[in-house]
C-alpha cells in the first residue's frame, strides 16, 4: 500500500495542475499562471538534464545553449520565411505551384526603420491586393527541436568518446560561443536587441466552445504542461527500457559495460541527442510564449539555475528534478522582494541566488540524492531497510592508502 503512495500523489498533482487554472481566481491570476508556465519550462530542462547527468553520468553545461538553438531556430524561421500567393520580385523566392516561398532579406537594427525589408516593400506596392501567410508556429517548434538534435549529435560525436570532463568543458564553451555569435550577427539576429516571435496561438484558439485570445494564459499553460508530461513520459519509458539499463550501466562502469557488449559511445550520443532535443523544444515553446528572445536570457545564470534545480530535486530521479524545478521557481519568485535590516537594503534579487548556490553545494555534500528523491524513496522502498538495498562497493583500498 505504502509503495503506491508516490503514484497516487503524482496523479493528484497532475489533476491539481490540470484543474488549477479553472479554480483559481485571485487578483494575481496572470502572474501565478506565468510563474507556472516558466516553472514547467524549467521542469522540462531540469528533468532532461537529470536524465543526462544523473542517469548517464554525462555533464553538459550547454543545456541552455541547446534551449537557445531551439528558440532561435523557430524565431528566425518565423521571422524570415513567408508564403505568398504572388511573386514579390524583390526578395529571394521559390515557386511551388501557386505559392511562392519568400525569404525576407536580413536587415539589422542599424537601419533607420525596422520595416524596410523587401517583403514590406512588396506589400506596399501591392497595396493590400494580396496577403502573405506567415509560417505555422508548430513547424518552427518542430524545426527548432530537430536543429537542437542535430547540434547535439555533432557535439556528442565529437566529445562523448572522451572522458566526462571534456563534455562539461566543451559544452560550457559552446554555449558561450553561441551567445557571442548571436550577439555579433546583428544583421540576422538583431543582436542584443532580441528578435520578436509570433505568440504561441497568434490568432487565438477555440477549445470546447470557449475562445481564448493570444494573450490568454490558459492555452500556453496547457501547451507547456503537455510538453512537460510528454517529456516525462518519454524519459520514464526510456529509463524503464533496456536503453535505461544500458545507460545506467555505462554510468556505473563504462569499461565493464563495454566489455559486456554495450556500444558505450552510441548510447551516450543517443541520450545526449534526446535530452538536447527536449531542451530545444522547451526553448522554442517558451520563446513563442514570451514573444521575444535575446541572447542574454540564454546562458550561464539560467544554466546554473537548471543545475541547482536538478540537484536540489534529486539528480538521479527526473521526476524529482521536475518537481524540484517547479518548487524552486516558486520560491525564487517569492524571494524577489528586497527588505531592510538596520538601514541596509538587502537586494534579494541577487542574494536569493547566493542562497541557492549554498543550498546547492550543501545538498551535494550531504544528501547526494537531493531533497525530494529521499521522500519518494521512503515510500517506494516500503518496509525494506536501507541496508538491504544494494550498496555500491566502497573503494576501501584508497582510503586505507591515504592513512
Amino acid at each position, binding site marked *: 500500500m505504502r509503495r503506491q503512495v508516490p503514484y497516487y500523489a503524482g496523479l493528484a498533482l497532475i489533476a491539481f495542475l490540470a484543474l488549477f487554472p479553472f479554480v483559481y481566481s485571485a487578483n494575481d491570476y496572470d502572474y501565478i499562471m506565468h510563474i507556472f508556465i516558466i516553472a514547467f519550462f524549467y521542469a522540462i530542462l531540469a528533468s532532461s538534464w537529470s536524465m543526462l*547527468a544523473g542517469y548517464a*553520468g554525462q*555533464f553538459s*553545461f550547454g543545456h541552455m545553449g541547446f534551449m537557445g538553438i531551439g528558440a532561435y531556430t523557430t524565431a528566425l524561421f518565423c521571422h524570415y520565411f513567408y508564403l505568398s500567393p504572388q511573386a514579390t520580385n524583390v526578395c529571394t523566392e521559390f515557386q511551388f505551384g501557386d505559392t511562392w516561398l519568400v525569404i525576407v532579406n536580413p536587415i539589422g537594427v542599424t537601419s533607420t526603420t525596422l520595416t524596410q525589408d523587401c517583403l514590406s516593400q512588396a506589400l506596399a506596392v501591392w497595396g493590400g491586393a494580396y496577403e502573405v501567410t506567415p509560417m505555422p508556429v508548430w513547424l518552427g517548434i518542430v524545426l527548432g527541436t530537430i536543429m537542437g538534435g542535430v547540434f547535439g549529435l555533432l557535439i556528442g560525436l*565529437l*566529445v562523448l568518446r*572522451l*572522458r*566526462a*570532463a*571534456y563534455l*562539461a*568543458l*566543451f559544452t*560550457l*564553451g*559552446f554555449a*558561450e*560561443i553561441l551567445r*557571442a*555569435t548571436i*550577439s*555579433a550577427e546583428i544583421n540576422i539576429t538583431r543582436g542584443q536587441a532580441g528578435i520578436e516571435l509570433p505568440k504561441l496561438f497568434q490568432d487565438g484558439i477555440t477549445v470546447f466552445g470557449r475562445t481564448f485570445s493570444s494573450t490568454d494564459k490558459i492555452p500556453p499553460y496547457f501547451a507547456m504542461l503537455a510538453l512537460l508530461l510528454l517529456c516525462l513520459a518519454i524519459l520514464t519509458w526510456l529509463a524503464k527500457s533496456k536503453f535505461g539499463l544500458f545507460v545506467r550501466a555505462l*554510468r556505473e562502469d563504462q569499461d565493464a559495460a563495454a566489455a559486456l557488449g554495450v556500444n558505450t559511445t552510441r548510447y551516450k550520443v543517443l541520450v545526449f541527442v534526446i535530452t538536447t532535443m527536449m531542451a530545444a523544444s522547451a526553448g522554442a515553446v517558451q520563446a513563442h510564449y514570451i514573444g521575444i528572445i535575446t541572447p542574454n536570457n540564454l546562458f*550561464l545564470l539560467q544554466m*546554473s539555475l537548471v*543545475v*541547482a534545480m536538478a*540537484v536540489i530535486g534529486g*539528480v538521479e530521479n527526473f521526476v524529482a528534478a521536475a518537481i524540484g524545478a517547479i518548487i524552486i521557481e516558486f520560491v525564487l519568485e517569492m524571494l524577489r522582494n528586497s527588505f531592510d535590516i538596520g538601514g541596509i537594503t538587502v*537586494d534579494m534579487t*541577487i*542574494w536569493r*541566488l*547566493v542562497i*541557492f*548556490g*549554498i543550498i*546547492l*553545494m550543501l545538498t*551535494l*555534500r550531504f544528501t*547526494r540524492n537531493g531533497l525530494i528523491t529521499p521522500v519518494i524513496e521512503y515510500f517506494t522502498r516500503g518496509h525494506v531497510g536501507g541496508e538491504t538495498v544494494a550498496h*555500491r562497493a*566502497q*573503494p*576501501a*583500498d*584508497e*582510503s586505507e*592508502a*591515504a592513512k
Partner: protein
Amino acid sequence: METPGIFWGVISWMIVWAVLGSIITRRSYLKRDLDTSNATFVGAMMGAAAGPVGLVPLWMRTPELTKLLIVLPAIGAVTLIAAAFAFADPSNNCVSNGSFVASQITNGIIIGIIYGFMALGLTLIFSILGVVSFAHGEFYMVGGMLVYYITVVWFPGVSPLIGVLGSCSIAFLVGAVFERMFLTPMYKGKIDRPVEYGILVTFGLAFTIQYFVQALAGANPVKARRFFDFPRLRLPSADDAWLLKTSRGNLTLFDTISISNPRFVAAVVCILVLLSLLYFLHRTWTGKALRAVSLDREAAAIAGINPDRMNMLAFALGGMIAALAGSLLVQAFSWLPQVGNIPAMRSFVIVVLGGLGSLPGAFFGGIIVGLVEAAGTGCIPNPQKAASYIPAYGMVVLTLTLLLRPTGLFGRRFASGTHGKF
C-alpha cells in the same frame, strides 16, 4: 577581403584532404598493426599541408611517426593558411603592415604568458585532485576584485603589492577551506562517482561566489589604477630612440612594437612567479611531494606523504594562481562579477590543448592560444566582429584538439588514483 574565393577554395581543399588523411592514415596504420596514437593528427596535417602528394607516400610506407614528422606538416598547414590569406587579401593590415604583425605577435605572446599562467593553476588542480575546477574563473575574478577593494576602497593609497599579496592569500584561504569542506569526501570513498561530484560542486562554488560578489560589490564595472608608471627611458639617445622608448603607460621597442604597461608588468610578474613555482615544485620537499602524488597517489602515500594534505595544498595553490592572474590584470581591464567566465573558458581550452595535467603543456598552450587570438583579432577584416568573436578562436582550437589529438600536446596517462577511473 578582396578575393575571398581563393581563400575559401584553399581552405575547403585543405579540409577535404585533412578529413581523408585523418581517417585513412589511421586505418592504414591500424592495418599494419602500428602505433596509431599520432596517426590521426599527422594524417590530417599532412593532408592539409600537402594534399595527395604527402598523403599517398604516408599511406604506402607508413613510416614511424617521429617528432619531425609530427611538427613539419603542422607548420606547413599553418603556413599554407597564412599564404592563402595573404593572396586573397593583400591589402589587409596584417599582410601589408610588418610592424603591425610584429606588434600583434609580441602582444599575443605577452597575453599568452598570462593565459598560460592562469591555466597552470587549473592543470595543477587536475593533476593532483583529478578534478576540473569550474570555479577557476571565479578565483580570477575574486583576485582582481580584492585588489580593487584593498587599494581603492578600504585602504586608499596603499601599495599595490600589498593588494596583490592580500588577494592572493585570501584566495588561498578560500581554496583551502572549500577543499576541506567539500572535496574531502571524494577521497574517502563516500561519493560513488567522484568526478561528477567534483564537476558539480565546483560549479556550485562558481555560482555562489559570482553572485556573492555581485551582491556585495554591485554589477557596475570597477577599475583599479595602474600599479606603477614606467620611468621615462630613451635608448640609445633622447633624439633617436630606436631601440627602446618608454612613457608612463607604454613601452615601445624598435619604434614599432608597442606594449601597454599593465600587460607588460603582469607578464613579467607571471614569469617570476612561474620560476619560483618551478623552484618550489622541483627543489623543495613539499613540491616534490606534490609531484609524487600527481604521479602515483598510493606509492606517494607509502613513501610517507599525506595525499589529503597535498590535495588541499594543490587546490588552494591553483586558486591562488588564478587570483594572482586576476589581480595583475585588474589594472588592464575593467572588472565585473561576470568577468571570470571567458578567462575560465580560455583556461579550459589551454589545458586541453596542452594535455590535461601537464604543466609545460599549459604554458605552451597559453602562448599558442594567445597567438591565435592575436591573429584572429588582427586579421579578420571586420574589426567589430573580430572583437566579439574572441572566445570563438579558442573554441576552434579546442575542437581541432579534440578531433585530432584528444590527449593534447603533452598529454600523459595517469598511473593510479582517481585519474584512472574516468
